[in-house]
C-alpha cells in the first residue's frame, strides 16, 4: 500500500539553528500539505500545495518558515532560525482531490 514518506523521523536542534524536513507524497497525489501538531492538539495547517504552486500559506510564519515543492512531487519545509516554541510534530499529508488526506509518520522536532 502506498504511503507518504517523511524524514527525518526525529530531529533535535539548538535554537537559532536551521532545520529542514522532507516529504514524498503518495504517487499521483497533486495536493500536498504540511501541518504542525502540538501535543494534545489537532494538526494545524502550515502550507498547502497544488502541484508546485502554493494554494494556502496563510498560517505559515514566513519570517522563519519556508516551503517548496519545486517539481510538484516531493517537498521540503525549512525553519531558520528555530525557536523553542517550534518544538512539535511536523506532519506531511497528500490527497487526490476532495478525498481524505493521507498522512506520513511525521517528524518530531525538539528545539533546545
Amino acid at each position, binding site marked *: 500500500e502506498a504511503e507518504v514518506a517523511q524524514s527525518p523521523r526525529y530531529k533535535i536542534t539548538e535554537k537559532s539553528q536551521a532545520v529542514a524536513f522532507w516529504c514524498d507524497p503518495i504517487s499521483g497525489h497533486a495536493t500536498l*500539505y504540511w501541518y504542525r501538531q502540538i501535543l494534545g492538539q*489537532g494538526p494545524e495547517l502550515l502550507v498547502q500545495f497544488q502541484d508546485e504552486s502554493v494554494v494556502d500559506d496563510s498560517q505559515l510564519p514566513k519570517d522563519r518558515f519556508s516551503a517548496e515543492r519545486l517539481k510538484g512531487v516531493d517537498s521540503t519545509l525549512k525553519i531558520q532560525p528555530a525557536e523553542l516554541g517550534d518544538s512539535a510534530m511536523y506532519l506531511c499529508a497528500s490527497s487526490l482531490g*476532495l478525498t481524505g488526506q493521507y498522512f506520513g*509518520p511525521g517528524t518530531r522536532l525538539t528545539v533546545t
Partner: protein
Amino acid sequence: EDQVTQSPEALRLQEGESSSLNCSYTVSGLRGLFWYRQDPGKGPEFLFTLYSAGEEKEKERLKATLTKKESFLHITAPKPEDSATYLCAHSGYSTLTFGKGTMLLVSP
C-alpha cells in the same frame, strides 16, 4: 470562523463496552467530514469521509454518522487495540480544520 469541537476529551472504556464520540462543527459550506485515528508518536490514519447528512460508514467495530451539525463515531464492543486518539476534521471552502481529538483508552 470554522470550528470543530470534540467531546469528550478523554474516554475510558472496558473491553466490550460500546460508546460514542461526538464531533460538532460550524463551517461555511461543508465539503466533507473526516475521521482519523492517531496512535502516540505517529501520523493520523484516515478512517472515514462523510459528505452529507444521513450518511453512515462502517469499518470493523467503528461506525461514523453525520447530521447537519454533528458527527458521531460509534465504537461497538471495543478492544484494547482500539485505544488511540480519534480526530475529527471538516473541509469547508478552505482546507481541513481539526478538532483536538478524543483520547480513548480501552481496558481489558
